[in-house]
């Protein structure tokens, strides 16, 4: 049993024990399926692997826990969707995901998250707003070279909107932008 980690089109082999399985126009980064129970440490280990990979190549993270029998099964799952995955890789190439959450501190009046989101969306290639308990939970696909400008904008927005507490994390692999269209 092997675990599928990501789709890429970079031919350079990832560091062992990860391997590259060619699948049409793209390739799958696979590794041994971890044994034992899922825990936070396991998730974090996987995140670290993906982060090392995404530093050097365009990639689409695959949903956590996706396992198949062997290389042939991995290729068989991916090849039929090679073209759309290749297109999806173009969308994220050179960019990272930055996450922004905004909450209203206790005792404050609710701030204008719409304005925050609009400004940040303008600095991103793409954006995705997620449902959640916070007034704003969003992911932005930002050019690597534009991350500093994006973060500076977040800091400015935090100064302008005292009724909001804004937390910005990243850079993340493009989790929210990995789904082909």
């Amino acid at each position, binding site marked *: 049993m092997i675990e599928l980690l990501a*789709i890429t089109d970079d031919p350079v082999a990832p560091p062992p024990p990860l391997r590259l399985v060619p699948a049409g126009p793209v390739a799958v980064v696979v590794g041994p399926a971890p044994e034992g129970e899922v825990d*936070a440490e396991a998730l974090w280990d996987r995140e670290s692997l993906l982060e090392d990979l995404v530093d050097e190549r365009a990639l689409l993270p*695959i*949903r956590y*826990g996706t396992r198949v029998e062997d290389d042939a099964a991995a290729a068989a799952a991916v090849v039929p969707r090679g073209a759309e995955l290749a297109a999806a890789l173009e969308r994220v190439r050179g960019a990272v995901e930055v996450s922004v959450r905004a909450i209203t501190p206790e005792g404050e009046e609710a701030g204008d998250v719409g304005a925050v989101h609009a400004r940040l969306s303008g600095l991103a290639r793409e954006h995705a707003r997620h449902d959640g308990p916070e007034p704003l939970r969003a992911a932005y696909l930002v050019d690597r070279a534009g991350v500093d400008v994006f973060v500076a904008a977040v800091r400015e927005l935090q100064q302008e909107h005292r009724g909001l507490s804004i937390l910005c*994390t*990243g850079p993340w692999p493009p989790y929210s932008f990995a789904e082909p269209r």
Partner: protein
Amino acid sequence: MKDKVLAAPLNGDLDAFERKIPHLSNALSRRIDADPESVQQGLAQLVLTIVELLRQLMERQALRRIDGGGLTDEQVENLGRTFMELDRAMEELRDHFGLEPEDLNLDLGPLGRLL
């Protein structure tokens, strides 16, 4: 470990964000029931919930590592409970559809819905 906080809130209160992490049991309250029409919706909801949970766990881990402190007893307990709920939910799903653990991945659409 890389610092994942790019910009912290003015008051520096990262704990306020941690409290916003929902319990899986709440998120799964509308999970699969016997009505076939709700099955697809239930599956989709569960997948989304798990994805969101994973994401938030990673964020929380990142925040914790920056604080340099460990988790409090209560947080450890919450985390343990969350994973137990996750296990149980997955087991129910498998029972409901008569699937093996490996099938479940495929059934939920590996690569069909990337994380």
